[in-house]
């Protein structure tokens, strides 16, 4: 019954989506609102049907209905309820089903929010979203059908992949990733909508920017959560290995980050219009490419589930999207002249341009490194892997330059900087950077990239914090507000700008912590008997006992380890090995003790069966918790910049923000300047 319900919901959704695309296109083309409304109704119905299908699958999983193929593949009566529910996204078919639901939800939200908007752009965007829905619904009725009938019905199933049921972050990382990945379909749909409607104007910028930041915020959170998962589960004390699946999530993030910066150049100066459309399209394509890499089985990893024909579907879709968007871009490019030009080499737009150049090079580097082994295997039939050293060597200099630009950009004004500006604005940050660099060398940092990260991080942190200080000081002077009120109202009245700076501060925290934790990581491994101790970098642990525990889905072999301060016990840790019934390999379950200064990380490597000894890997990594905190700050920054403006603005009058700001009234257009800059209120959601 559940099976039939889910299966028919997908079937109907597929048929409706196929009908919805021409309906929306026709409505957009002829301007007939009844057709457009019909297409919007299809979008809502598609959402309802996919919600039904997803709920049916969750019900089938929870009720252990093994006649459903997906349940027979990932379900097991022994699996705890939480992991049973989240195994919805624990394998190929379920993850595509969940993907379809997220896509349908985004589409419904986009259409609902813009349902009253005139013009052809939104209907065309809806057509694009429905087109993408057709593809995913097609996968669900075809190669990734989760509702196939299994006969005879098995009594029990194998349960999810052990790696995917060993940590609670499995309930966090995948949904965030889908929200980020699938969210990139929305800006893409608006790009196509704008191109088809021939209205790549401010309206396009406003809508696309907001939806990109939504998806970008989720993707940032997802990448950080994925790093955290890897750190907590894989037992090697690291969080990033340039693994192809990590790269797959990272590449669209890079291009989306480039876009949220360069879109400001288009908004303020009317430049980079074709470029921005290309970035949005590239981001979408990279999410589909990422899904292809992780879901088609071309790579062997915990994310790759099968070797079915699904890869060809993805390749065809990628080719189709690529060709169609290139044709559209080429066809419209004559109408997409830059309205502005670069006035001076030292200006905010130049920094954005450099930022985009670096992000593009970064993306290509990661793309080449990721695809090279696939190309080598299919062309020359050799198995190679591109090692981490390649990525580090290529991308660390880019990261340094980006950190530096992150410090320069916020302080620079648009158009051109006054003569003594650089000295005035960057004197203090440069001094701070030099002091930090000297200090980090003095305390023994010999990794030059780490020194660079600390110095440039300090530089960028100083300039970004300084922006808050300058703005708040101006308010305190103008309104006699106390510092906290001034700061809160400053951010409240200019959410986009200060949200961006908050995101910068988070990114700096993450970058610096990554540099510190890799440069100062120390590890040792020893076999010790109960009662014996081992030490590393001032941390001492004592093995107290080994124990075992039988649970429904696994056998846990654990160790109890005391953390010592001299003779005094200050804590206990339990690194474990989990033996799942369905796997012949144990899953490491490291124990992590986090303090502001860093982590003590213990992994049980091996043990004597009689409990007489254990091999423990002890890792000391400074600042690791700040990687996760930095990620949270980035997401907070995205949330601040998206927070809807209030109708009534705090304070009595808008306070002009000193130089360097978005809010500075545009300079009077010089003679021959292309056109006046649109008033800010017309293009942004923030009321001044």
């Amino acid at each position, binding site marked *: 019954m559940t099976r039939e319900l889910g299966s028919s919901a997908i079937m109907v959704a597929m048929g409706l989506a196929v009908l919805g695309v021409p309906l929306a296109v026709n409505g957009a083309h002829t301007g007939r609102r009844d057709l457009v409304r019909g297409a919007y109704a299809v979008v809502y119905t598609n959402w309802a049907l996919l919600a039904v299908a997803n709920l049916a699958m969750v019900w089938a999983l929870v009720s252990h209905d093994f006649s459903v193929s997906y349940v027979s593949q990932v379900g097991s009566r022994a699996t705890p309820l939480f992991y049973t529910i989240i195994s919805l996204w624990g394998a190929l078919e379920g993850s595509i089903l969940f993907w379809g639901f997220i896509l349908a939800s985004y589409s419904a939200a986009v259409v609902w929010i813009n349902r009253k908007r005139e013009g052809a752009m939104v209907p065309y965007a809806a057509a694009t979203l429905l087109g993408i829905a057709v593809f995913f619904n097609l996968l669900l009725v075809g190669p990734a059908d989760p509702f196939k009938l299994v006969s005879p019905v098995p009594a029990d199933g*194998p349960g999810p*992949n*052990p790696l995917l049921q060993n940590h609670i972050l499995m309930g966090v990382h995948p949904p965030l990733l889908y929200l980020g990945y699938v969210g990139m379909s929305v800006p893409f749909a608006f790009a196509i909508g704008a191109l088809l409607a021939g209205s790549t104007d401010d309206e396009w910028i406003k809508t696309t920017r907001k939806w990109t930041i939504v998806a970008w915020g989720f993707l940032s959170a997802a990448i950080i959560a994925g790093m955290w998962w890897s750190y907590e589960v894989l037992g090697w004390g690291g969080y990033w290995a340039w693994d192809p699946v990590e790269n797959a999530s990272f590449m669209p993030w890079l291009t989306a980050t480039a876009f949220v910066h360069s879109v400001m150049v288009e908004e303020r100066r009317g430049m980079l219009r074709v470029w921005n459309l290309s970035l949005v399209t590239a981001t979408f394509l990279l999410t589909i490419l990422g899904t292809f890499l992780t879901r088609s089985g071309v790579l*062997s990893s915990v994310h*790759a*589930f099968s070797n079915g024909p699904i890869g060809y579907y993805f390749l065809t879709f990628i080719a189709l999207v690529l060709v169609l968007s290139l044709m559209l871009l080429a066809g419209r490019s004559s*109408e997409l*002249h830059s*309205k502005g*030009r670069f006035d001076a080499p030292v200006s905010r737009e130049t920094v954005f341009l450099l930022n985009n*150049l670096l992000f593009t*090079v970064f993306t*290509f*580097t990661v793309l*080449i*490194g990721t695809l*090279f082994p696939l190309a080598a295997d299919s062309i020359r039939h*050799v*198995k*190679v*892997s*591109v*090692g981490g*050293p*390649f990525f580090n*060597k*290529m991308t660390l200099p880019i990261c340094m330059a980006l950190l530096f630009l992150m410090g320069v950009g916020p302080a620079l004004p648009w158009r051109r900087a006054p003569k003594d500006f650089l000295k005035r604005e960057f004197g203090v940050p440069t001094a701070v950077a030099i002091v930090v660099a000297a200090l980090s060398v003095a305390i023994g940092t010999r990794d030059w990239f780490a020194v660079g990260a600390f110095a440039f991080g300090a530089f960028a942190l100083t300039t970004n914090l300084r922006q808050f200080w300058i703005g708040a000081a101006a308010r305190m002077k103008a309104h006699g507000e106390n510092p906290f009120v001034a700061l809160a109202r400053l951010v409240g009245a200019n959410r986009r700008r200060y949200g961006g700076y908050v995101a910068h501060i988070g990114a700096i925290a993450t970058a610096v912590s990554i540099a510190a934790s890799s440069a100062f990581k120390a590890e040792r*491994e020893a*076999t010790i008997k*109960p009662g014996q101790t081992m030490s590393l970098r001032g941390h001492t642990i004592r093995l107290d*006992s*080994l*124990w*075992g*525990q039988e649970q429904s889905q696994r*056998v846990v*072999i654990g160790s109890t380890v005391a953390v010592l301060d001299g003779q005094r016990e200050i804590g206990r840790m339990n690194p474990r*090995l989990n*033996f*799942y*019934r*369905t*796997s*012949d*390999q*144990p899953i490491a379950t490291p124990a992590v003790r986090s303090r502001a200064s860093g982590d003590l990380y213990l992994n049980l*490597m*091996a*043990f004597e*069966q*009689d*409990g007489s*000894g254990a*091999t423990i*890997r002890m890792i000391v990594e400074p600042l690791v918790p700040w990687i996760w905190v930095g990620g949270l700050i980035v997401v907070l920054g995205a949330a601040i910049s998206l927070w809807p403006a209030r109708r009534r603005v705090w304070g009595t009058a808008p306070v002009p923000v000193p130089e360097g700001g978005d809010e500075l009234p545009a300079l009077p257009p010089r*003679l*021959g*300047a*292309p*056109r006046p800059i649109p008033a800010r209120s017309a293009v942004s959601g923030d009321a001044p």
Partner: protein
Amino acid sequence: MADANVNEPITPRKRRSSGKRAGLIIGLVVILSGFGYLVYGGLGENLVYFLTPQELLAKGTRAFDVPLRLGGQVVPGSVQWNAQTLDLRFKVTDGVKTIDVRSHGSPPQMFRDGIGVVVEGRFAKGGLFESTNLMIRHSNEYRPPKDGHMPAEMYKSLIKGSSAT
């Protein structure tokens, strides 16, 4: 868009901007070729080949002292493990050729005779493969443990709580 051209100044400015454009294109070409060169060099230095013992030996001297991944099975009876010095020696075979491997650090818990492994490291001139990373060959089809390797049976004494204190 029409208003964008209304104030467009005449020729001198135009010429300068086309000169600028040429400069921009040249700059881009220089940057891109520099980037291409770096990527090419970086890839060449950092490619890690995945080889079987037979393929490794067939490479002759070219296999010496470059980062490699060696895949094969652990030859039964070849494992020598010193838990105190964390020194591990074993042989890896593909059924045709066999290679001696030395690794430092404790092997994964499931490391045993006959299991498929991937060892990362370098092949030294003496014919010994120095491993820096030893991995059990992953299979995405998660198989239940074989008889005789049921953890609940193997670690019975620990589960009963009879662990040494």
